[in-house]
């Protein structure tokens, strides 16, 4: 198994693990972390694909994609954390209730 394949598989597992966490846990902080784990999985796959093999130099395009993706991910996490704080201020709970509409 090549290094690239190994990391791609690890990335896919992280994606699935994050997806499970997002669905299974109610706590908002856990959900936000799960989303980040999923994102890391995708970035790992992209980096692994860029690596290719030891002989040729890595492909820069996926690197650029990961850098852009990281910026997006940081901004999204910031917004999510701010919203999670607001949810707690408003409802006193760190979970979303079943019925979103009042």
């Amino acid at each position, binding site marked *: 198994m090549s290094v690239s394949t190994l990391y791609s598989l690890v990335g896919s597992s992280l994606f699935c693990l994050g997806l499970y966490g997002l669905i299974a846990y109610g706590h908002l902080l856990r959900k936000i972390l799960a989303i980040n784990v999923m994102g890391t999985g995708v970035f790992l796959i992209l980096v692994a694909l860029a690596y290719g093999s030891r002989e040729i130099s890595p492909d820069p395009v996926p690197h650029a994609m990961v850098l852009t993706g990281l910026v997006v991910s940081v901004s999204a996490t910031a917004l*999510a954390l701010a919203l999670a704080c607001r949810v707690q201020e408003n409802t006193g709970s760190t979970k979303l209730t079943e019925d979103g509409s009042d």
Partner: protein
Amino acid sequence: MVPTDMVPVIAWPVWIIFLPLVMAIFAFLFRRRGAQLGIVTALGLVPALSGLTWQVLGNGPQQYAVGGWGVPLGIDLYADGLSIIMLTMTALVGIGTTIYARGYYSPTGEAKGTHHHQDPSLFWPLWLLLWAALNGLFLSADVFNLYVALELLGLSSVALVALAGGPSAVAAAMRYLLVSLLGSLSYLLGVALLYFAYGNLSLGLLAQSMTSFPASFAAIALMTAGLTMKTALFPLHFWLPPAHANAPAPVSTVLSALVVKASFYLLLRLWFQVFMNAVTPSAALLLGILGAAAIFWGSVQALLAQRLKLLVAYSTVAQLGYLFLVFPLAQGKGTGFSAWSGGLYFILSHACAKAAAFLAAGTVLYGFGHDRIDELAGITQRLPVTMFAFAIAGVSLIGLPPSGGFIAKWLLLNAALAGGQWWWAIVIILGGLLAAAYVFRFFSRAFSYVEEVPVCRDLPWSMELTALALALAAMALGMIFTQPLAVMEIAAPLSGPVLTGGLP
């Protein structure tokens, strides 16, 4: 005579993206000037969009390499008939919403705010950012740039929903954000697979090299799942009604009329241009069945809704279902263009009608301080213009002639019957009946005559007139249909006659 390649081509696509983006930054820096900057953006986009439309009508699809870099290093922008339709829809609804929001967030209105605390100074930068993201999405020519535009769109939409404040709006925004991020990540994984399989990201190059390769199927599945979630296709629609119903009126309008269409636009691009050789009829059938389920489920929920804005939001769930009928209908023999133009016509007319309906519902909430349908008897006596706008929008949502909704449904019906898929025709007709039921349920209250009419506070005239103008635009689409159809035909991926049995 000057040869055509010597004529300097003005880079309208760049203007269309950068004007709202720059104005968004200005609106953030100069908080008090938000409304003026919004109006300037709306006015500035009209000549830019007209210029681009002119170029596309005259010379066919336009490709533009930003900064002269080109693929694979730079970013390419691309405009064809589909992009023009989407950009025009955004401009129509955007201009209407901008004028409405100027009145809605005016200082006099703020003093007696009906809802929780709303900060109008933050609305403008976010709305202009959302506008820039929409325009960028409709002009992007590579799948990764589309991802960035999709994320910008999602983040600004969520922030706008949260602007309303209060427990239900914040919870709705949080749920919307989680769904939106999940959808984008699923899409991004699909992008990674496409790059792995084909070594490039450009829509045009991918379309040429697409084959039925396992990685293609995985990419289609991941991207479609992510995007249908963002388009709120049944059963992934659960986040939409609370988010759209709890947002401030101008925000509900752009979310329901424009934002959900953006991810659907991307589905159309991918399915009919990039994955044309790889998608299977059974996958198209599945999307159609989910669309049909959305029509029934959304309509029934709209019938049961106690609040007007929730009714309009569930109506969006139902109406989005029709869009997904395009996928199976386009599989019929010779009905490709009929289904394609029907879907695009539905997008256009629904955008105008739904914008009018949400603006009118927002005016009702603003005027009376609540939107409980049972307590809105006789409001037409207080808000005749707004209710007239709602009525016209309702006619288009139901699909009665001579509205844009009628033309759209006619084209879809034609594709269903001519392509030998009559069962979709039954879905379309029943959906229209259900729409009539939920629209008239509200009208029977609003248009009834009562002695003691509820008290309505003063509103800026612009709020009433913008809803009316958008409703009339939905109606005009039913009368002027040759020009929109001509634009839809430019570089359309599906060919065939508009109507197989002649014009109605």
